């Protein structure tokens, strides 16, 4: 590698936080006009390293070089001025403003001697930029009316509008649907073709290999290797990431299925806008079975799960648990009956962000044994419980007194999964249980779900990861537009068939699952 053509060079970057070394002597060289993936598990120090490059953190020691010049960034402003832009995992957009207003925020073109914003110039600038890079955005749309994919493009445009040559993307695919991920990669290619440099943070091997030219792997804050994407393999990368071999295949022992735990009958649910999101669905989950639901996000999965878990009232139909109707039961009654729930949005529904893990650990069981004693909460017992979850599910940092907000997304997820699975449930409703979680922990969560299955519990699994939902499920329902397209045998179905089903088409021959197509579902 020649030094002259490096867009970014980080040398011996060390970043210490009180009690933690987040980055330990890390080197990184990113060639101009390439896509560079920064790969590692949750907590490997990827985001910290990039926050150092973006000026959000100052390195404890080390040198930053951009375009061959040594730089010190005191704030993101300095980094932006040097042509470095960052797109955070959580978008920094104002929902109530338009696309163009967001892109220009803080850099508004003025007229009338600086008195007013020149809205026409803003629009033109945005249109010009998005045409140059082949982005499809409507400058006058409100952010709250756009999809996540569009919001991400707006974030990228925002950085480009400020003259960024180096773009850092933090877990850009975490919130996207498979189709949007493809669109994003096309955008990245277009950007590098025009001379921009991309660094993207990910913990997904496949993505790094697919979209990047070079890959740098971090583990425990240390640089463990840099490889060219076309000269490596998934196994090599996985080994670098976790330092041991990972079984990427899911092994599923045979289990005898028992009675129906959950049965959903002719259920119809409307969404927040009163539009029917789930139409007349019926299916059941039996003991010792993982029932998977695949589908592109936004096809009614959320509303279905909310109706089952008691967060949304159905329009019609019924939900039965252990043969008894729970259609109108409260959340508490469902939890007490033995229904655990791993919510889609951990920060919104899974945790109270300002609470520590001891408090978060008893959410949902605060009124029950062994945590409640005579109207008071037994904090000793609660602490023991939280510490057990932290320990077993490898939540880092291993500190039950840490506030939920201080944990990284993947560790928050591990804690929520741990709390729910430790309820000793009859049925687990798990939506995206491994979203944002590193490979090692994914494996662990999968194993725990399979343990429950082996133990004769039911699992309703909703996931947008096809290999996960195929690997774990005994029967797999594909949802499209509020409807179940088919209930298939996940071992037999091909990816093409799934793709067609998810897109709302019915291939001629599909491998229906045994006892598939429960009554009410039209073939």
């Amino acid at each position: 590698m020649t030094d002259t053509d490096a867009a970014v060079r980080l040398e011996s970057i060390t970043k210490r936080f009180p009690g933690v070394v987040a980055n330990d002597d890390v080197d990184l060289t990113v060639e101009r006009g390439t896509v560079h993936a920064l790969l590692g598990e949750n907590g490997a120090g990827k985001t910290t390293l990039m926050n150092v490059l973006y000026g959000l953190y100052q390195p404890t020691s080390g040198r930053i070089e951009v375009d061959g010049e040594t730089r010190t960034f005191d704030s993101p402003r300095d980094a932006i001025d040097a042509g470095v832009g960052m797109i955070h995992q959580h978008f920094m957009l104002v929902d109530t403003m338009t696309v163009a207003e967001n892109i220009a925020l803080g850099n508004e073109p003025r007229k009338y001697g600086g008195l007013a914003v020149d809205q026409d110039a803003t629009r033109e600038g945005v249109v010009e930029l998005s045409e140059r890079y082949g982005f499809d955005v409507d400058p006058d749309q409100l952010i709250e009316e756009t999809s996540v994919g569009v919001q991400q493009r707006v974030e990228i445009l925002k950085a480009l509008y400020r003259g960024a040559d180096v773009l850092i993307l933090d877990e850009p695919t975490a919130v996207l649907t498979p189709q949007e991920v493809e669109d994003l990669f096309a955008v990245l290619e277009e950007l590098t073709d025009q001379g921009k440099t991309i660094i993207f943070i990910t913990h997904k091997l496949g993505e790094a290999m697919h979209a990047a030219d070079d890959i740098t792997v971090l583990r425990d804050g240390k640089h463990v290797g840099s490889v060219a994407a076309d000269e490596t393999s998934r196994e090599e990368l996985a080994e670098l990431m976790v330092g041991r071999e990972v079984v990427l295949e899911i092994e599923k022992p045979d289990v005898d299925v028992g009675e129906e735990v959950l049965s959903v009958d002719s259920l119809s649910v409307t969404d927040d806008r009163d539009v029917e999101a789930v139409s007349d669905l019926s299916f059941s989950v039996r003991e010792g079975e993982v029932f998977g639901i695949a589908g592109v996000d936004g096809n009614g999965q959320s509303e279905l799960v909310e109706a089952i878990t008691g967060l949304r009232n159905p329009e019609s139909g019924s939900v039965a648990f252990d043969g008894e109707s729970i259609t109108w039961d409260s959340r508490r009654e469902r939890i007490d009956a033995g229904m655990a729930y791993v919510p889609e949005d951990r920060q919104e529904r899974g945790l109270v962000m300002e609470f520590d893990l001891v408090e978060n650990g008893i959410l949902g069981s605060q009124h029950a044994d062994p945590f409640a004693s005579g109207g008071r909460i037994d904090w000793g017992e609660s602490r023991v419980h939280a510490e057990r979850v932290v320990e077993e599910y490898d939540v880092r940092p291993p500190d039950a007194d840490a506030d939920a907000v201080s944990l990284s997304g993947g560790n928050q997820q591990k804690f929520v999964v741990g709390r729910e699975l430790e309820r000793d449930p009859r049925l687990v409703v798990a939506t995206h249980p491994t979203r944002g979680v590193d490979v090692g922990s994914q494996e662990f969560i999968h194993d725990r779900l399979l343990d429950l299955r082996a133990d004769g519990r039911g699992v309703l699994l909703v996931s947008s990861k096809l290999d996960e939902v195929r690997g774990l499920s005994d029967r797999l329902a594909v949802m499209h537009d509020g409807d179940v397209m088919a209930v298939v045998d996940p071992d037999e179905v091909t990816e093409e068939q799934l793709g067609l089903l998810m897109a709302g088409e019915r291939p001629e021959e599909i491998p229906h699952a045994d006892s598939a197509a429960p009554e009410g579902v039209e073939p």
Partner: protein
Amino acid sequence: MSSATETASRSLSRTYDYLFVGRSRLQQVVVAAGLVALLGLVGAAVFFPETAAADLVAVLTDSSTLAATLRLSVPIAFAALGGIFAEKSGVINIGLEGLLIIAAFTGIYATDVTGSVWFGLFGGVVASTLLAALFAVVCIEFKADQIIAGLAVWLIALGLAPFASTVVYGGKTSASVATLPTVTDMGLPFVSAFVTTELGFVVDLPVFGVLDLQSSLVGLPFFGALFDAGPAVYLMFVAVALSWYTLNRTAFGRWVRASGENPKALDTAGVNVHRVRYAAVLLSGVLAGVGGAALALGIGQFTGSGPTMVNGKGFIAIVAYLFGNYNPIGAFFSTILFAGLDATQLTLQARDVFQVPRPLVRTIPYVAVIVVLALFGRTRLPSAAGDSYDSGEGE
């Protein structure tokens, strides 16, 4: 019988749909204002003999009612505008009432000392801005709970102003000072001076023309009041328009909105969130200051007993801008509605048509806001309102 009520309810709901569904906030406020007024009139006609209803119509269409409405609107509208800026930036300024009180007293005191109502107005603005600055420091710098700090602002002013009045004037009620003149009072010298010095040309005829026009406009039924109001009323019109423009068309306005919706987005875009919030809260102090001083200087005396002469106008201002969904123009029309109800009630009592207990009328804004919010539920709080912002190293 039941089918009759059914048809009635159906036609009622159809009318409701026609009037409200698919309309903008502003239209709804106007429609609601019209309906409330109409219902009030019909109600009066039903419950009282013809004469009273006829009197009521006379009162409603009287130009003095509009004059009183405009006069009563001034403090509420200014405070509401101030509240919009503060809350849009993410700082809920519940202390508007306090800002009005402190400005009212200081306005009188400064007029008394300097002998000029204009210096008095300025003094009121300064006092209110200083108190707002204290509030801003406590909320923004020290991240105090905004509601509690806002209540403190109110309580401080509620204690301080009557106390100062007692020290200076020997009682909770101040001495009388000059009042703000009306356009007619200011008359020819003012208008011609304005034309010559401000507009830069001396023409005799147009001045007389303007004056003639003004005096003939004053003679108009009902709307005549619009042309014979005090300077504070015209200042209010200007302030409403300017506030709307600032919020929607300037970069500062956008930063204010972004600061209240997603301060982190504004921060990462390189704009200092704290600075924007300080500016917005100080602006709310300036605006409320004009309102409070104008209120006192319209009467020429500060009354400090009980809830003081401000008497809840700062809280009605909060209701008004919520009612207007943070739109300065919507807030203005809500203000006119509330002030209009008050003015009508005052005129009715003055003419001894029939007695509506004043406390009852004063509850109308609060009842109305609950009904309207429950009915439409479209007031949208800025997402980050009430949250202090820490630009330190997050995540």
